[in-house]
């Protein structure tokens, strides 16, 4: 879908007057729906629908060996799959570049030990650790993928149940792990500091958050910020276009402000949310 010059001007004027095409102001988000625990095979899962953007995140856990240079740490791996359901452009290997970009931003946002403490995932120093596979499936693209994915990932990790270890048997080099028999007996991860990504777009002379698919086309430059609690954990500029230094700081300020609000809202909802609601896609 490409916009004509007139449509672009219309969007531009709307942003300038702080009244966007869908009625939002510059800092407003579109409505979101969040469901958790909808993939039975996974240890934790979430589906987030942000207007037209639909992402499904599932977390799987496997036992792995820690890296030699980080013997006390577990592992986390992000994998993004852009389903062709979202747009025919993703068919075959078409979605790969976007998928890799998303996965890389996520892993760099989660890299700092202050955002996500991988030491909690260690089972036995240097021998065994848990490896979290965070698999993101993009089902529909309606703009602002980064924010939607990060929120869904955070929700999925919140709900993830890491099995409890009952005993570790060491026999020479052979390590055997006994997992608690009780399925309900699980550890939860601390998600308080997990980063939230916010995409800030510059349209005309102003910055906006949560751009829709059409607004993304009018942007002169976009910055993705990952904010964990109060601090930035990653800042990346995406797409084409360039930003002036002053505007960049303006973007960062806006992103920071919005991300903190977004995080508070998400945390409040995650506490309330009831898993195992039999809804899924049938609603």
């Amino acid at each position, binding site marked *: 879908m490409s916009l004509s010059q007139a449509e672009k001007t219309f969007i531009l004027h709307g942003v300038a007057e702080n009244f966007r095409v869908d009625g939002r102001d510059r800092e407003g988000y579109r409505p979101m729906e969040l469901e958790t625990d909808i993939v039975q095979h996974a240890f934790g899962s979430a589906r987030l629908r942000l207007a037209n953007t639909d992402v499904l995140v599932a977390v799987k856990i496997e036992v792995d060996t820690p890296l030699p240079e980080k013997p006390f740490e577990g592992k986390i791996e992000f994998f993004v799959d852009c389903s062709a*359901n979202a747009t025919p452009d993703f068919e075959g290997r078409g979605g790969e570049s976007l998928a890799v970009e998303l996965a890389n931003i996520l892993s760099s946002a989660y890299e700092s030990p202050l955002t996500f403490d991988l030491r909690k995932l260690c089972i036995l120093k240097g021998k065994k650790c848990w490896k979290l596979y965070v698999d993101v499936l993009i089902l529909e693209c309606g703009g602002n993928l980064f924010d939607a994915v990060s929120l869904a990932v955070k929700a999925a990790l919140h709900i993830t149940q890491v099995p409890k270890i009952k005993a570790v048997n060491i026999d020479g080099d052979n390590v055997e792990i006994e997992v608690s028999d009780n399925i309900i007996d699980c550890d939860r991860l601390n998600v308080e500091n997990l980063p939230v990504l916010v995409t800030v777009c510059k349209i005309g002379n102003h910055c906006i958050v949560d751009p829709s698919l059409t607004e993304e086309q009018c942007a002169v430059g976009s910055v993705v910020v990952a904010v964990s609690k109060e601090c930035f954990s990653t800042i990346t500029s995406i797409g084409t276009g360039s930003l002036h230094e002053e505007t960049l700081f303006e973007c960062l300020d806006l992103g920071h402000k919005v991300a903190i609000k977004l995080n508070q809202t998400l945390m409040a909802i995650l506490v309330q949310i009831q898993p195992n609601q039999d809804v899924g*896609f049938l609603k």
Partner: protein
Amino acid sequence: MSRNRELISKIGLRLDGRRPDELRRIRCKMGVFSQPDGSAYIEQGLTKVLAAVYGPHQVRSRQKAQHDACIINTQFSMAVFSTNERKKRPRGDRKSTEMSMHLQQALLSVIETDLYPWSQIDVYVEVLHADGGIYPACVNAATLAVIDAGIPIKEYVCACTASLGNNEVPMLDVSHQEEILGGPTLTVAALPMSGKIVLMEMSQRFHLDHLPKVLNKALEGCKDVKAILDEAVKNHVSEIGSATGWANTTS
């Protein structure tokens, strides 16, 4: 063969408590997404499939275009978390390619391709949860999505699996658990109204004498599936129709 005997208990129930001629619960919804021209979601037991249809639109690669019919492009992919063991890749392996081909075969038999010369229809299916009978679920979801897209079809194409339990009793809609335990699996995609078979695939061996009754059972299953899909389509259309005020909303 001794393992096959356990598929149906003495009182005639299967491992998950179904009778031999019972399908798993089918729940479906059309119009799940707004961007594709047609989309559908189906749950057959625990197997969950999303399908999206784009088109008819201009052919993407010029060489493939046909002057008297549209081409149907299918892609099958499975989410990496859909199986018990995490998959390495969502698509591109041999099984996915085969599934795409078979899906295309089933859809080509029903879509009125000659109405859209020089054009293309994309059908994408995404398996979210695999629990046996993936191919039938994909075909059924694709049928619903094609109907949702408003593409003319000759009739429904439905698929179903059947197996042979205890070496004599035909069973319908095989689950993953039953697939693992062994026993042959017959996958049939059929046009239930005219009774034609579009695709038939059998794995493992059993005596030819058993084939007619297993095949019959599978065809019966296709008819049952068709009835369920038909009702879902009617409900969906009356729901959409009542919003615009042209449908009879008495039902």
